[in-house]
């Protein structure tokens, strides 16, 4: 399964490392990463793509616990659907 997580975070220098550390430690493979600062230092918008066989809630539940994560939206598509 391919999942795209759209994450809005607080403006903390370390926040990207946190997201990547949790993603790696929980065993999800990173397939893409995009990041841009929101206007007026309001935080960051991070788009994380991961590929995995595991249920995605094992990652999203952990990411949601991070204090700096303010919003997380998930879009998932199966690989077969992608190929079609």
């Amino acid at each position: 399964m391919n999942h795209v997580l759209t994450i809005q975070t607080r403006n903390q220098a370390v926040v990207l490392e946190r997201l990547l550390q949790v993603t790696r430690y929980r065993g999800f493979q990173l397939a893409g990463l995009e990041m841009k600062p929101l206007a007026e230092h309001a935080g960051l918008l991070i788009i994380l793509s991961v590929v995995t066989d595991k249920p995605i809630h094992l990652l999203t539940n952990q990411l949601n616990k991070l204090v700096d994560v303010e919003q997380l939206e998930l879009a998932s598509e199966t690989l077969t659907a992608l190929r079609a």
Partner: protein
Amino acid sequence: MNGADLVMKVLEQHGVDSIFGYPGGAIMPIYDAIYHSPIKHYLCRHEQGGAFSAIGYARSSGKVGVCLATSGPGATNLITSLADAMLDSVPMVAITGQVPQAVMGTDAFQEIDVLGLSLSVTKHSVLVEDIQQLEATLHEAFRIAQSGRPGPVLVDIPKNIQVAEVSAALHEVQRHTTNDLETVEPHTLTQARQLIAAAKQPIAYIGGGVHMADAIAELQQFLTASSMPSVTTLKAMGSVAKDDPYYLGMLGMHGTQAANLAVQQCDLLICLGARFDDRVTGKLDTFAAGAKVIHIDIDPAEINKLRQPDCAMLGDMKQILPAISTATACQPWLEHCQQLKQQHGWRYDHPGERIYAPLLLKQLSERMPDNSVVCCDVGQHQMWVAQHMRFDHPRNHLSSGGLGTMGFGLPAAIGAKLARPHDTVLAVSGDGSFMMNVQELGTIKRFRLPVKIVIIDNQRLGMVKQWQQLFFNERYSETDLSDNPDFVALAAAFAIPGHRISRKDEVADALEAMFTWQGPYLLHVCIDEKDNVWPLVPPGAANEQMITEHSS
């Protein structure tokens, strides 16, 4: 006022009375502020020990533990204790000094990226980059450490921020209540009650989350209203009333046979603030395989992490337990479990003169004053404590559960004694574990802390030796400690009296002497190196496949 003074003022605002730490260059301004502060600082002799004392303080009292360290080596020495607090959900605030911002990122003397190091061992961590953020950051650290599922928070403060001037007007502490917790949908509560009422063989699987939610009374009322057998994890020992006839003890790798067998046979498992840890479940897909599961927790990430529940409730245990209480109809099951308990009860008849640790710990448990706190280390003695001592509250049994950290016991006992000066505090250690934070005897000496230390000495790294014996064909690689120091002489060097015993008939008098002595005391108990912990669920096996002393 400067940043360092502000740190101490905010600690005062949060009601902190004791802190544990060790000074050094990058935290000197804070130590200068400590010099004038009413908060009592306890100098540890290794930052790991100081942070374990903060954990012992927090776990025995329910308050936030606070520890301090300098940059670089001071901060790296905290890491193990932060990990311990993380895995056992202990509310702790760790404050580290950092080199001045002007030289950060230049490999300055004693500069280490502690924020980077902290990511996997803290609930949250912050590098303070502006004096204007310091106050709010510290308040937030206390809030995060205690809210939801508690955990350690690290605040790294560069030296120039500690000396920067800041306005003296402090904001008031916002008291946070648990009202912001989600409420459980009424239909979910109904579903839970229906599952409980319909179960023929229900069982409560109780974890540390219950007492951390301050819901011990609610748990005991629930177990009375919804009569069912119960089992606890290592962290939850003491949660169930001592006289509950259907309490079966600890479950898991070294759990009681009654607890493990009953859980394997149950048709409804009610998981209360526990997390299906592998030391509890054995082979996961065989764990309570025929049971429906109700899972109640405060941490959304624990729900459906290892076991899919049939009914899940997120929120405050204190409110949920009364709301799901309902009468059960499972008399034959209750009787069956009681029978299991009788059939597999502990036996203390042990031949010969030598001291049998399970019996000694039972005697210790019976002799210690009510409300004593027992702090354990890690290994066979830790499992014997869990099996053979009785506790009436989880705050009275501090054991490193999730991380299983040797060296935990002695410094944790220091913290517990300071948090609860009127209660007796014991450190029960193995000869291996004791040496891992032995320097904290210096802390005991300095503050004349009347901690009672019991070393269960088998001249081995016993738990590892047991696995070598059972699973590595008796290749005893590096587990021999037969050249241990003379522990009584070692204690004497710290002005702590002690006594060594090796025979059963010496035990009663030795315990009497230890408890009647007013100050700290070390009891060195020599046991047979061949004694092992039973029963044991072998790695990878299901929990009903326990091996016992006679089946092995």
